[in-house]
């Protein structure tokens, strides 16, 4: 299962000559940090890192918030147009990105949002939302309404019911979807590449693409760079995993 990850990490520590060998070795003999230094000193690393963090932060926060509200409506309430809304959520996910590239660019160009991180954030939100709404709905349905009603009866206001009862119970769903949103925004290449132009607006995937030129790919530094880009995701996951886990045990299910 984890073999490709293992391979990526061990390759990142191999010196150049060892990487390209007709007898691939499972356990590296020599250990070298040269790939990492090459990766980190490659032009644009810090800027790309910063840009990606900004894009990801706004994408995740806004989409989770918006999706949370929407999924409550969809999971709990009846309203006219609900079926259509759900159908749209699903259909939007069937749109192939390559087909929408040019119209999207045209739209953002008219809105003066090309070559701006904000344009990228908006687009990512739009693409991530349907998925997050759909997934959170699934988790919400499993939470008995009686709990909410009990809370209301106890005198809580609606928002309090959500905050103290619903959200902690939705925690696992929130974790899965926010990690998903994070990864989407963190690793997405094509849209970012088309919508952004200036070098100082590049995100991490665009920076990563620079390891490939007409010669082919510079594997060592690319693996090192990829390992580095995978780290924030792991950090993010462990952060929210812990925070929410404590939330669950604290706001315990009272039966």
């Amino acid at each position: 299962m984890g073999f490709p990850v293992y391979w990526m990490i061990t390759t990142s520590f191999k010196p150049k000559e060892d990487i390209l060998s007709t007898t691939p070795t499972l356990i590296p003999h020599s250990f070298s940090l040269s790939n990492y230094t090459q990766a980190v000193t490659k032009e644009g690393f810090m800027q790309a890192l910063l840009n990606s963090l900004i894009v990801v932060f706004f994408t995740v926060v806004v989409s989770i918030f918006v999706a949370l509200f929407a999924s409550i409506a969809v999971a709990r309430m009846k309203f006219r147009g609900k079926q259509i809304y759900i159908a749209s959520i699903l259909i939007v996910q069937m749109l192939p990105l390559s087909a929408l590239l040019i119209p999207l660019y045209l739209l953002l160009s008219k809105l003066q949002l090309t070559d701006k991180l904000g344009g990228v954030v908006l687009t990512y939100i739009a693409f991530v939302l349907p998925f997050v709404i759909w997934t959170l709905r699934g988790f919400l349905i499993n939470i008995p309404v009686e709990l909410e009603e009990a809370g209301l009866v106890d005198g809580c206001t609606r928002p309090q019911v959500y905050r103290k009862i619903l959200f902690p119970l939705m925690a696992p769903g929130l974790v899965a979807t926010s990690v998903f949103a994070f990864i989407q925004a963190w690793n997405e290449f094509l849209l970012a590449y088309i919508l952004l132009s200036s070098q100082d607006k590049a995100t991490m995937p665009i920076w990563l693409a620079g390891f490939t030129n007409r010669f082919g790919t510079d594997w060592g530094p690319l693996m090192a760079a990829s390992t580095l880009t995978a780290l924030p995701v792991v950090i993010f996951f462990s952060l929210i995993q812990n925070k929410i886990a404590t939330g669950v045990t604290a706001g315990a299910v009272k039966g």
Partner: protein
Amino acid sequence: MRTFRVKSLAALSVAALVGVAALSGSNAAQAENPKSITVWLMPDAKDFGTALADATTSFNRTYPNVKVNVEFQTWGDHLKKLDAALVAKKGPDVVEFGNTEVMKYSAAGALTDLSGFKARFGNSSKWLNALTEAGTYDGKLYAVPYYAGARAIMYRPSLFKAQGISVPKSYAEFLAAGKKLMAAYGTDKDFSAVYLPGKYWYAAMSFVYDEGGAIATKSGGKWVGSLTTDAAIRGLNRFKEVSDSLSRADKSGTEAAQWEVFNGGKVAMSYSNGWESCCIAKVGTDWAFFPMPSVKAGKASPAFLGGSNLAVPSYAPNAALGAAWIREFTSSAQMTTIAKSGAIPNNTKMLSLISGAAAPVAAAAKNSWFIPGAIKWVDVENANTLQTMLSDIATGKKTVAKAAADASDEITKLLN
């Protein structure tokens, strides 16, 4: 009418260029007062020493208030990005194209006609044929030659010395040398005297062109696949001969990263680009080049010339400045720097600047072949017609005659 619009757009942009150029001399910037120009290049430009920086410095001497924004693109997706910009009627001012992909854009009217300026681009009378052909459409110049990549045989001198082989000067000698190497080292399953993957059409078609054949020819305004001519069949037979007796490479594989295999030490010769020598550290300095010899003794076989051209899109906000920047970047001074960094410059005069081990590669650039100048050539590449034909031949799935006939028919169909 559409064609009228396209032609008039091209004409208008030429007029604009002429207008601004007429004013140009020392202070054209004042006339339009733009603040910056945008240049789209591939990351390869970073390998050319100071050429890029010097070009901009020189450009700024004539246009002091114009900032040059260089934005690096990726080979896989840059055309999508260009299309998006063209739809939005925005454009960069300069775009780098691969030489096999630019004709489509010239034919569609997406590029500014630079014919009027040809004389002002450095060394334009000595430009390499393949790059010039690629950048010309309907007799007009749309894309300026930038740099090229040629192929020659990269070999291991130590193995040659051990077997008492000298550099072959004809195809016959080449074949004999290969057979001798296979006899000596071929018991190792991984060893290839000549590493020739089945789908390596740049190499395989060289055999066809060496015999005087061609992939397609134009007759009576129509393009016709010409792989069934005697010359072409002879060439394809040679390809099969080398693949069968001298190569253990994947008969259905491509030449992608073939230097990795060379680096593994079990290859005596490979038909390689000049830059492939950069990455074979493991075999150390045991490598050198010689031009692939022709069937005609004492001559070299034509080799495929890859490379890039620079163009100014029709919607460029600052077409004149874009052209001026291209002139700076392809000037003799910058070309010299580019040549010194190992790439092949855009003209024959400077080929001699490439010295040492890479010199045979530069010599190969003088004698090259290029893809048929059909607008729809891209369709043939996308349909993988040549690759399929070659791998069918190499694996023995089809006879040479049948494979060539099928491919020719498909090419005729696709190009018209």
